């Protein structure tokens, strides 16, 4: 059986800048895989090529063996790929529940219907998703009023609406308070494991990465320089030189096992 996500020799340059140079990796179902690297390493470019947001110059992206070449993001979504954004993108004029309902209507192929009240459609399903991410009490609120951490949760609920097998999360905890970060990622990991979803996420917070990722990939100057378990990557001298630094802080914290 082909892996959930298989990336082969992905390339992208902007003008003379080679943002991504021959990146290959795979993601398996139920796996939490982190993509880390310094600013400008090509993480976002890489990410945006995985769901058709930007077309690669060369290389292939296979989702369960299917090439997504030429497909727009909405078609990649139909293949079972959910996505959250670095800066949250939600429907500001709707309530929290309505945000999820729209995603569900789209998933069930009912978004073009002109009859019936959308506010009553897929309600139970939407509430189940909101309960999953802990937003039940916020369902009726305009999503423009939500705190940033809750917006991130909402994005997660929306991304789960199409019962994805692969979840792409671009800096899921950026801009959140430390405790919220850990909670959101623990939630994500729980859901992913329970439903067998493969999760690929980029992240700058090493606490989050080493705590929740099954495996970590390190991207530098458009190339993958390491892949392994958090412990392996942390020990990798090249990764330390380029990204983590030589400080003993991470070692110290993670040897103690900081369960949040």
């Amino acid at each position, binding site marked *: 059986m082909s892996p959930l996500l298989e990336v082969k020799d992905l390339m992208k340059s902007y003008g003379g800048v080679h943002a991504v140079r021959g990146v290959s990796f795979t993601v398996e179902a139920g796996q939490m895989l982190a993509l880390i690297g310094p600013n400008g390493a090509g993480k976002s470019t890489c990410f945006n090529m995985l*769901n058709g947001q930007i077309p690669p110059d060369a290389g292939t992206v296979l989702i369960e063996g299917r090439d997504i070449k030429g497909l*727009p*993001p*909405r*078609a990649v*979504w*139909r293949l079972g790929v959910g*996505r959250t*954004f670095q800066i949250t*993108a*939600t*429907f*500001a*004029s*709707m*309530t929290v529940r*309505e945000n999820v*309902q*729209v*995603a569900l*209507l*789209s*998933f069930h192929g*009912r*978004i*073009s*219907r*002109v*009859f*019936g*009240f*959308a*506010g009553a*459609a897929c309600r139970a399903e939407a509430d189940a998703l909101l309960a999953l991410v802990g937003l039940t*009490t*916020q369902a009726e*609120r*305009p999503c*423009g*009023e*939500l*705190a940033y*951490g*809750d917006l991130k949760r909402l994005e997660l609920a*929306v*991304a789960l*609406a*199409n019962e994805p097998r692969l979840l792409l999360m671009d800096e899921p905890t950026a801009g959140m308070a430390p405790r919220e970060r850990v909670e959101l990622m623990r939630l994500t990991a729980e859901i992913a494991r329970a439903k067998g979803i493969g999760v690929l996420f980029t992240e700058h917070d090493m606490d989050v990465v080493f705590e929740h990722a099954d495996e970590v990939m390190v991207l530098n100057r458009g190339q993958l320089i390491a892949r392994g378990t958090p412990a392996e990557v942390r020990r990798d001298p090249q990764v330390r030189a380029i990204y983590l630094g030589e400080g003993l802080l991470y070692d110290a914290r993670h040897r103690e096992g900081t369960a949040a």
Partner: protein
Amino acid sequence: MEFLLVQALSGLASAASLFLVASGLSIIFGVTRIVNFAHGAFYMLGAYVAYTLTTRFAGPFGFWGAIVAAAIIVALLGALMEMVLLRRIYQAPELFQLLATFGVTLMVQDLVVVIWGPEDLLGPRAPGFTGAISLFGRMVPTYDLFMMTLGPVVLGILWLLFHKTRWGVLVRAATQDREMVAALGVNQKWLFTGVFALGVFLAALGGALQIPRTTVTHAMDLSIIVEVFVVVVIGGLGSVFGAFVAAIIVAELNAFGILILPQISLITVFLVMAVVLVVRPWGLFGKPESAPRAAAGLTIRPWRPFTQVERAGVALVVVAVAALPFFLGNYALTVGAEILIYVLFAASLHFMMTVGGLASFGHAAYFGLGAYGAAFLVKYMGAPMEAALIVGPLLGLAGAVLFGWFCVRLSGVYFAMLTLAFAQIAWSIAFQWVDVTGGDNGLLGIWPATWASRPAGFFWLALGIAVVGVGVLRMLVFSPFGYGLRAVRDSALRSEAIGLNRQRMQWAAFIVAGTFAGLAGALFAFLKGSVFPDYMAIPTSVDGLVMVLLGGVETVSGAVVGAVLYKALAIWLMSQTDLSKLVLGGVIVVIVLAFPKGVVGFIEDLRHRWPRKGNGATVGATKAEAA
């Protein structure tokens, strides 16, 4: 061959003025992000002021001095407008800025007639350029040669200004990142005013320089603004060089289009613009807008369908309106029917604008197409009113299918400008295709069926169609389709990521809105008994916009309230004053400044100022959770 060369030269001469006006518009947009609709008005003012000055001061020095002085005077007026009006609305949605500058345009149209009279004026010829020289055996006016060289010279001066002066560098910096420039301690206010004055100066200069070539008329503002919109759409908004190239393209297309398709010369320009938009939606030399600004209808309070009580209230109002024929006279009922038709028209535009986030500045095109569709059926096929009312709007639908396909590729101001250009093209076809449309004389004798020929009967017909139409549109707002539309409006990124096809959904909304506008237009044809090209002219489009804005963009039912208020006001004003445009323009400006959320939005704001009990508890709970 020689003939073609001379024709090309004449095109180049026309390109000069077009370039001056278009570059002014582009420069202003680049820095202030305002599409200055009043640019055509300033162009016209430049011509009028130059006319007065050149006839007063004769001689070479007098003439050329007068041209420059006219441009400077108008530039000062422009700076004044920027300081008094635009400074207050830079933060408003771009739609409001377009509308405010349109209000100014309306006012200038009446003021020009008041000051200079309604007749076309013929100014003096340019000293030193009165003759013509023989080129390829044909006579070419020397003034044309002067204009031809002027274009590149102005382009060169602008380049030097923007690359070699400190001020120009600041302007370019502000074009790229306004916030950053402000953070670096540059006084934005005066930079904006200066840029605006420069843009207006170029427009007025373009107008003043037209004196020796054509007569000065009070219709030259709208004709130039449409051409200029086409130029900046082709060349790319914000690019001076793009304006230069596109001005030449458009002027040459005009020069040769007249040879190929004398009847409908605008068609060639339209075709080229369509091709450019498909290949490069942001124009030949423009840059794609990085982050589109908040769409027109963005609301913070989610919409709710009517409750039972509210529904009963609406039903009561409808019943009360239906009873009006028992109390009102014939004239009042005819006015009432007209208002009802505009309610439907405004509601269709509102659906597209608020729910779809597509602010059309040319919605009258579909209104007019529906009217012509009905008129054609009556005139050429002898159809009865009932059939014409059903089939006629299909012409509006067809127009929306065609134009909408191009328009939904764009967004924001580009979308607004393109819809305006299409409406103007539809208008010029109706105006120029005399054999079919009757041209300016219109099509007469489009009378309703006997049962609806009495004012009361027609009033009920209009009421029935308006209620059903508005009801259907409202149902669409709350249907899954309506939610999908709002989703693509709220966040293009997120909606694409949950599988929504933005262009297809917006195209569908465009078609729905166009069809209902067509239905309103078909009714209107029977109300008036005739059809004229003016049904699709810019003022009709803007009437619709003002109704929606007056009622409130962010509301579901604002269009209905806005249409009733505005149309009643407009009809009353028409009967009271000859200067209706001046007053209407003033009203628009006041609305934009005083009620940026419209009347219904204003009332809702008042209602929400006192939160109901229970809200506080929810907010408290959230804060506790977040902490």
